[in-house]
């Protein structure tokens, strides 16, 4: 698929449509690998904590009879796979649009049960709006921990439990279907994944997840592609051998039901540091925390960021009307207080005061003449114009003799801003040209990078050498503290995308979302990073990242009902680690989708 998931219009499948499609699951899941007959002829009773009692009789390799809480006996198709001492089996109850995925540790008789359901009609609070009813096609899950009852044995005191032992770890997986995926577990509640097979673009996405510890090297994982197809994937993995056995359930972008089991092999691609206290083991799940209502929510609930639900569509004209009433530049006044995202910013610089130059961008790009009479004010004139435009500006010295500044384009429609890195040592420049509006939303920004040279007395810019796009940051993660109250971890997941993760109060990595982005190399260790929160809030962040001082500085550009805003952004960074994933990207890696 070459439409990014966050742009794809997934069908709102009805309960009836889903029910009809799920009839196919009566036969049990398919599998490329041979399913196991380890359970054939056996009967087991599973007792779960705060969940159902499940009684199973496995008639053969594919058929079982079971009951919930001593209720009626139900026949269903199932499939089972083994992985070391683990048995994993999966079955559905098509009439109920529910099913169970059961992971049994034969060494301990401990069990993790993941109940799944579709068309649950579950409501969920949103951020600032009324509660929503979750789409019927989105697979819901509920975890229960328990054990297999053994006659004459006491119930175990310790059960499987949620864990942070996978937090910060990244794995590459290749399944027996040929499907390849990068999964970066940079949160205890989400998975950042790049579908290397199904998606034409190397974009990363975020899926709410659970992580369960079986023992020190075996873990159970699930993720649901909420806000996208709603697809559910779960597996048990053994990190000693980097193998997995799992299941995929849900409706793909063609609304086709996928219900199959898989085996996979993989490799660990890196580990980020996690910053919570050393005695924090992540045993408590993260749930939606309405202020003042910290009680654990009901069945199926999970912490899911659903930004598009509250992002109100505006036309280009509506946004421009708002901009005419209110276009804010750098807080509005010269001495404006630092903005929330810039408490830890780099200082403003007077490096350009008194300077004059021409920025000439390639391939018919803009040519602008600049003068800097004051620290916070510039004049510019497009080539061919005979009148100077005066605009407020903010200038940083992002690296030695490297100016980084921004301003609005006067009276632009749609409102546009430009951010320029100008290397006063070698005469190279990059401009990030941004304006309001995309083909999707009038209140979403767009950007492009253009490369060129700076013509200034005393500088001899090169003819061929230019700043260029780079993947050098790909795989790296930095925490960025905009203020003591606001820190986000940026994970540069692919050459075209990134994710951000919000720390909880004890610095566990929690809520997460993602966006496309670009990276430009200015110098060794100095980069421009530009991301746009597409289908989210439409805002963009354009930062100069100086890895030598682990500090960034830059600009934010956004617009909507309250007008258009060009602001400043800057943060103190910490390098959290790096995934070795660059090898998975690039045109040569694409085998056709």
């Amino acid at each position, binding site marked *: 698929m070459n439409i990014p998931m966050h742009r794809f219009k997934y069908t709102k499948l009805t309960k009836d449509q889903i029910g009809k499609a799920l009839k196919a699951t009566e036969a049990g899941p398919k599998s490329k690998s041979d399913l196991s007959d380890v359970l054939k002829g056996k009967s087991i009773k599973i007792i779960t904590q705060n969940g159902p009692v499940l009684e199973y009789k496995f008639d053969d390799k594919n058929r079982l009879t079971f009951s919930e809480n001593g209720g009626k006996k139900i026949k269903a198709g199932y499939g089972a796979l083994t992985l070391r001492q683990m048995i994993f089996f999966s079955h559905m109850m098509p009439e109920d649009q529910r099913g169970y995925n059961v992971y049994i540790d034969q060494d301990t008789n401990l069990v993790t049960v993941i109940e799944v359901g579709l068309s649950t009609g579950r409501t969920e609070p949103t951020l600032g709006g009324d509660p929503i009813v979750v789409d019927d096609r989105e697979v819901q899950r509920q975890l229960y921990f328990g054990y297999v009852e053994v006659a004459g044995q006491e119930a175990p005191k310790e059960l499987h439990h949620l864990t942070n032992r996978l937090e910060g770890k990244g794995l590459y997986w290749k399944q027996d279907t040929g499907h390849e995926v990068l999964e970066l577990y940079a949160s205890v509640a989400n998975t950042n994944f790049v579908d290397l097979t199904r998606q034409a673009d190397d974009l990363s996405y975020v899926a709410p997840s659970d992580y369960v510890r079986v023992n020190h090297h075996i873990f159970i994982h699930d993720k649901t592609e909420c806000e996208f197809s709603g697809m559910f994937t779960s597996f048990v993995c053994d990190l000693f051998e980097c193998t997995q056995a799992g299941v995929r359930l849900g409706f793909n972008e063609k609304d086709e039901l996928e219900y199959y089991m898989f085996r996979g092999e993989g490799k660990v691609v890196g580990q980020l540091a996690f910053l919570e206290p050393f005695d924090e083991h992540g045993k408590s799940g993260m749930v939606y925390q309405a202020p003042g*209502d910290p009680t654990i929510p009901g069945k199926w609930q999970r912490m899911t960021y659903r930004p598009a639900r509250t992002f109100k569509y505006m036309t280009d004209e509506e946004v421009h009307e708002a901009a005419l009433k209110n276009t804010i530049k750098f807080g509005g006044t010269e001495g404006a207080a630092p903005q929330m*995202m810039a408490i830890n910013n780099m200082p403003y610089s007077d490096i350009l005061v008194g300077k004059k130059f021409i920025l000439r961008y390639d391939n018919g790009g803009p040519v602008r003449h600049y003068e800097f009479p004051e620290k916070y004010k510039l004049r510019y004139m497009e080539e061919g114009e005979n009148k100077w435009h005066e605009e407020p500006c903010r200038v940083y010295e992002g690296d030695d003799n490297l100016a980084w500044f921004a301003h609005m384009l006067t009276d632009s429609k749609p409102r546009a801003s430009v951010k320029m890195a100008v290397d006063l040592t070698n005469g190279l420049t990059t401009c990030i040209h941004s304006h309001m509006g995309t083909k999707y939303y009038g209140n979403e920004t767009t950007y492009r990078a253009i490369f060129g040279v700076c013509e200034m007395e005393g500088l001899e810019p090169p003819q061929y050498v230019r700043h260029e796009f780079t993947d050098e940051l790909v795989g790296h993660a930095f925490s960025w503290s905009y203020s003591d109250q*606001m820190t986000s971890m940026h994970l540069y997941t692919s050459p075209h995308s990134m994710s951000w993760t919000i720390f909880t109060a004890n610095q566990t990595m929690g809520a997460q979302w993602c966006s496309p982005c670009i990276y430009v190399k200015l110098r060794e260790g100095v980069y421009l990073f530009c991301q746009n929160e597409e289908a*989210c809030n439409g805002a963009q962040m354009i930062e100069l990242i100086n890895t030598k001082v682990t500090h960034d500085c830059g600009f934010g550009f956004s617009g909507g009902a309250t007008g258009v805003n060009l602001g400043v952004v800057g943060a103190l960074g910490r390098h959290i680690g790096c995934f070795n994933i660059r090898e998975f990207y690039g045109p040569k890696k694409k085998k056709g989708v």
Partner: protein
Amino acid sequence: MAILKSQTDDMQADRGRRSFIWKVGAGMSAVAAATVPGYAKTLFSSDKKTNIDDLAKQITILENEKIINVLHKQYEELLDKGRYSEIPAMFTDNAEVVFNGGLFKGTSGIKRLFCNCFASGMTGRKINHAPGIDFKPEQDRVEISPDQRSAKAIFTYSIQVGAPIDSDSTLVKMARLQGEGIRKWWEAGVYEVSYVKDIKGWKIERLEYKTFAKADYKPGQSYAKPISIPIFSKVFPAEPFGPDRLVKSV
């Protein structure tokens, strides 16, 4: 005998400036006296009727003190656990709460304070005193009126106070999703509380937060420095979670 005399003297002393103030410590001694056979015998020997009446009154006062203490503990616990919606029921219909330069009045005002203002900032979680901040707490005390229909109390507090970070940024929205997105700090002071008793029992009639110290402290931090937090400058509805009236605040 000597022990009893000294206790009686203490009681007399307390009948001076604050005629019906009973410090919890003194009250507990009186209970001990009343329940120890040797002491009771001595007491009854002088003027049985008066002493029995006094003692009965003292016991009622002690019982009411105990109820007030339990009520306050319940108030603190509800705050600590974030069960804000249960707090307004502890107040009378025309009660007042003074907090941060604002007076919240009546059921609607008190609901606004606890269910909106406090809830959005997760205010009220009990935390330790910020290190290095000079603050000498007063002693908790409860005084029951002579007619035992009302009471006044002072309780010290050391709590986390918070206010939502005012931003529509994605980061803040996501932080809110997981119960964060709140600027938090530490405050310590005393609650000055007035109670009234009706047929349903004791309720809070007025509660004032008298804050003596504020610092940029969070649990786990080894340092703190005093901070200044702006008081309310607008009232409801201009300030959606604001007070009904602005007042001079400590």
